[in-house]
């Protein structure tokens, strides 16, 4: 699950920088109002200065420094998002279609789907703590596979497979959504991710991937 960790490092950092900049600009504006108020009271004219090259140069250097820092942050985060991962525990072919999802477990006969429009979203069952490789595609228009908990989404294109690796650190259940306008029932394209103990996962997969199998393994869905 590098995405969530990386986001958890980068976003607060960038947010802190942004809030600092915002506070500085507000402070300058407030100071300008105060200076103006004092000038008016004392009958002083507006300042004449039109350039201040020293400050301008220092400021430009600060901007450049900030930009370089952000670029380095961005590059390193991006490289951590896609680590070389030669051997994922499980590979799932995820297909978005109008208007639901299909999850096929590579090397098995198990394909899970749901009835999104009837309010029964499919459940993507994964082993907790193990890396899951997602091979994402679409059967028709663009969709996007988004699990808000992962802080990650990726487009599903027809005729193309996007690949990424995610890890769900512990057992649990998280909502997933479609994040690309895909037509009439875009809003209904939800799915669940359910992470279970690896042994339970393997039992479930061997038993044919049924919802009953999941319950038999002692994992209860909602």
């Amino acid at each position: 699950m590098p995405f969530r960790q990386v986001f958890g490092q980068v976003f607060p950092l960038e947010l802190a920088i942004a809030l600092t900049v915002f506070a500085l600009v507000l402070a300058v504006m407030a100071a300008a109002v105060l200076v103006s108020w004092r000038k008016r009271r004392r009958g002083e004219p507006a300042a004449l200065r039109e350039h201040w090259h020293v400050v301008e140069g220092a400021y430009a250097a600060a901007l450049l420094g900030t930009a370089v820092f952000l670029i380095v942050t961005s590059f390193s985060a991006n490289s951590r998002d896609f680590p070389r991962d030669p051997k994922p525990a499980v590979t799932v072919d995820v297909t978005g279609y109008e208007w639901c999802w299909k999850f096929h477990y590579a090397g098995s006969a198990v394909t899970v789907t749901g009835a999104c429009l009837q309010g029964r979203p499919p459940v993507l069952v994964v082993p907790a703590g193990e890396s899951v490789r997602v091979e994402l595609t679409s059967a028709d228009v663009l969709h996007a596979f988004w699990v808000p908990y992962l802080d990650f989404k990726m487009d599903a294109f027809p005729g193309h497979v996007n690949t990424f690796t995610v890890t769900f650190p512990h057992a649990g259940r998280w909502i997933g959504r479609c994040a690309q306008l895909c037509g009439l029932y875009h809003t209904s394209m939800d799915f669940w991710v359910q992470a279970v103990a690896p042994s339970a996962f393997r039992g479930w997969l061997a038993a044919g991937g049924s919802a009953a199998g999941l319950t038999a393994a002692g994992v209860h869905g909602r």
Partner: protein
Amino acid sequence: MSTGTAAAAAPREPVGLIGWLMTTDHKRIGILTLATGFVMFLFDGVLGLTMRAQLARPGQHILNTQQYNLFVTMHGTGMIAVSITPFALGLGVYLVPLQVGAPRIAAPRVTLLGYWLGVAGALLLVWGFLTPDGAAAGWWGYTPLSTTTYSPGAGMALWIAGVFLAASGMICQGATVLWTLLRMRAPGMTMLRMPVFSWTMVVTCLMTLASFPALLTAMGVLTASRLDPGLLTGNAWNLAYENLFWFYGHPVVYVMFFPFVGAVAEVIAVFSGRRFFNYTGTVFALLVFAALSMAVWGHHMFISGQESNDYFSLTSILLVIPAGMEYFGLAGTLFGGRLRYPVAMLFALAFIPQFLIGGLSGIMLGTPSVDYAVNNSYFVVAHFHYTLFAGSVFGFFAGVYFWWPKATGYLLDERAGRVHFVLMVIGANLTYLPMFFLGLKGMPRWMQTYPASSGFSTLSLVSSIGAGFIGLAVITFGYTVYVSSRARKPAGPDPWGGYSLEWLTSSPPPRFNYNGQYPIPVIRSFTPALDLRQRRRPDQPGRAEG
């Protein structure tokens, strides 16, 4: 135009309605462009308010899913293609010849053609919206959703044609404004003596001319795929469309930003009683800004998984440098000024922090790792509404309050204007600030409704209440215009103590802008009107009214 009997007489311009609709006067074309854009702003705004009503509570069905997609598409396309972009170029059409001391705009008939193409585009978009299936593929019109396979109706075809015509019209107007800026300046008006607003129009027009053809091409791709649905299938075409679209789609954001930051710069300089601070640095930064922003479009495609993340992250983040330099000029002008606070100044002052929120969140989106989390969520909706509404539309209103007396000859009511301003500030922030948090909570864009269990209810309700304030604000603006036009308080040539040439001519200006009664003075700097006052009152060097 001329009749047989009057053929010998001097050519006369038609009067009345025909005189307006067939005018070659850039001031009239500018006003037509702005007014038509405002009509579309109201129409698309009502769509936006309806969507906010739909989203106010969980599980509502004021709009069904099909209608919601139609509304989302028309709201986005309408605001961008036939409302805010025309605001941007319409301001230029009206003001640039005045500011550079030209008697007319270059190629006025092409400018007028641009206006009419824009009207045709707007009509086709509305027509498409009213057809049974409408256009429901979002303002990006991504393939394959927008192809005949998935959007077979006439509405989509009308959308393509409408976008094409509106963009063509903006290219016409961008070209003539640029030509005026480059080739029709008054004697003494060198490039580096043009007001900041005129400079923002230089970069606006350059970006229009450089990027809008990509949109025309994208619409051509869509048209070809409608003629032969089997022609443009496959991943490469979908990606090509995305690239073409964003090659337009990012720069258009700056087309919808630069003129308004230019308006804000003029307003802030005049009401700070100071010449604009760091003028040359600002001009240089504008040019860098425009050039760089032609190379950042891929940041809209990080989640496509098929984009050069590092390259587009690099260029996008580099934008902080020219953007920061723009803010340096604005802040430097304010600081040390003697401020006055008419409504125009209030809108300009609010523009600074509000646009900054949009800009700073935009820089965050230039980091793929952040974009993966928040793209296509309400975080992005918040981001671009802070830039476009809390930024550009505030800058637009700063310009409206500032130049309205110039264009009409009478002042806008300050008291009603203040109410308008306060409602706008409350409305903008109440509507868009909660959306950042909705996005971080996982609410996707284009969602027609949400269940109560999703945790989106409270923030959505706050946002919808804010939208109500925006509606009130716009109604108050209408009231402001109404009472002002009843009162008709005469403005005189220069109600504010302005700096640029347009304040030296009458309000409204004569047909060819300057004449024997209102001559163009000697131009020695980018503030010729201020210079003229100082020559007449040498005891007060560098001081404006205040």
